[in-house]
């Protein structure tokens, strides 16, 4: 059985790994929508029309910004959950150590 301080360390490392994974996923969406749909694929997407605008043009001037707002909202919500989970784990470890 690993010691309490090892398990605290492990819980912190898990929290940090999840934090980094979440950040990378959100940044992948960030790049795909803005630099991907808004720039690299803009000429191809312009063949389609969305709410009266060519799609590539729409991504560059509307879609990217809308996605950014949603990304930061998701980040704040999920990170809050991760932090609460770590707090819960650490409290449990402390209780076990106290027994």
């Amino acid at each position, binding site marked *: 059985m690993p010691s309490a301080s090892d398990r605290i360390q492990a819980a912190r490392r898990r929290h940090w790994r999840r934090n980094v994974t979440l950040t990378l996923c959100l940044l992948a969406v*960030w790049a795909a929508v803005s630099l991907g749909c808004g720039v690299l694929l803009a000429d191809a997407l312009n063949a389609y029309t969305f709410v009266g605008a060519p799609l*590539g043009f729409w991504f560059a001037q509307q879609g990217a910004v809308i996605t950014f707002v949603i990304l930061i909202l998701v980040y704040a919500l999920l990170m809050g959950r991760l932090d609460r989970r770590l*707090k819960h784990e650490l409290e449990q470890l402390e209780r076990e150590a106290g027994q």
Partner: protein
Amino acid sequence: MTVQGWTFLFVACTFGLYLFVAWRARVRDTGGFYVAGRGVPAIANGIATAADWMSAASFLSMAGIISFLGYAGGVYLMGWTGGFVLLALLLAPYLRKFGHFTVPDFVGDRFESQTARLVALLCALFVSFTYVAGQMRGVGIVFARFLEVDVTVGVVIGMAIVFVYATLGGMKGITYTQVAQYWVLIVAFLIPVVAISWQLTGQPVPQLGMGSELTSSGQRLLTTLDQIHSDLGFTSYTEPFTGSWDKVNVFCTALALMAGTAGLPHVIVRFYTVKNVQAARWSGFWAIFFIAILYLTAPATAAFSRYYVFESLHGKTEQQLPEWFRTWEQTGLVVWLDDGDGEVAYHGDAQAEQNEVFRRGSLGADAFGQLRDDHAAWLASGGAAGVDGRAVLRDKGLSGPDRDIMVLAMPEMAGLAAWIIALVAAGGLAAALSTASGLLLVISSSVVHDLYYRMIRPTASERQRLKLSRIAIGVAVVIAGLFGIYPPGFVAQVVAFAFGLAASSFFPVLVMGIFSVRVGTVPAVVGMVAGIGFTASYILSTVFFGGERWCFGIGPQGIGAVGMGVNFAVAGLLTPLCRGPSEEAKQMVAKIRAPEQDGTAPPAAGH
């Protein structure tokens, strides 16, 4: 009541409001002065960040730039807001956890180097002063046009107001005045564009109005714009990658603006003012939410004003020219030099010979008067005497109206009520002042906290530092004001420089400082110097010495993206060869990664 009367009324009322708010929030210690006592609620900080963020460039220039560039204008929208995502996800929560006052503070402590601190400090000062100069120019334009006072008087009034509330309230005063300024600027931005969208398309939501049919012709607005553009020799409005904006340049410019924006010191410091890490994340969300309200509307403003420019100018005779053209003509931001047929012709680069609409640019009023007389003589003599003024202005690159007037002139173009026009003027001032005050505080804290207290005299008492901070703001205001009164002719290039520098220095060094425990002093400093050196030499050689764009044809605005890569690459290659960070620095990284309210994390260090 006239436009001028309304403007006086609105400007007086809003300035009174700002001073009242600042007086209510005045402070007496450095904690309150620099970081508002760390007690600002997340949503209030979000609103203040939005106002801090949205400068005169966002309010006055951005829609105008999009209006002239069409698709390519989107790089500014994506670049500035996309940078905010990087800031909110990669930097803000961790720097808040670090808990010091400034960005150079973090760089100096994490990489245990006074050199790193000094380089970061100089970058912060350069970026901030460049930015302040732009704000003061915005103040000057608004005052000159709407209050018909001299630009100098206008700038002095603006300086006095900023000075009073920044020195009185420090960060706390600035935060709460910025909240007030946000509401002024957003209302001023939205009311005219909603009215115009309704008027042109019968659709009150401007974002939808942009894609709707015009009630006059039944044709889609964007289709109409594309058609006018191709008829008159402009590059297409919605088609990407036209002219000098090829794919490589759009990509690099967007990326450089993103990384550069994430490194702007006056926005990062806003996250130091909230209670904890959670609040920093939520204030990031509220900030982008309030920013997006303006940024999603700006493309609509751009399309509508583009349509009005053609509608109200092209093919009109002397008598038919609208009132707004007359008033703006006096400022020299739009002028007309006829070819003799008595009708205005506004053409793009492909038909540049036929274009008759220009701006005075950096030509003085006298020089331009002379040119106008020469042009009249040239017309009267049928080309035998005088000079063709159009060719002269075309060669100077002064074709078309100044893009900064689009937002301010649009309510007049659409014939909206006088009070709406005045409201837009007050909004432009709010945008300029809110950003200027945030920047002045960064300049003051950089000089007094980072330079004087951390590097020169660590024994300075709290009262001395507070007094010095107020003096530093005073000096910074005067320098910024001088920039506004005597604007350097190369503001646009310097701004590209500021973003490039922030992208190639701050952003990589902050990301590495937080996400790596291996990068030590030497790789960080060498990487930062290499990034800055590459970017600065490229911009200097291409912009100021007419050198070739040898790096894939990338323009000076986009080169920061490559500079950032250089910084990361150099630091990454040196890391295995050099000594890693000390135990202390490693512990510091561990501390900023732990969410602070878990009970077992070490207590936050004092400053």
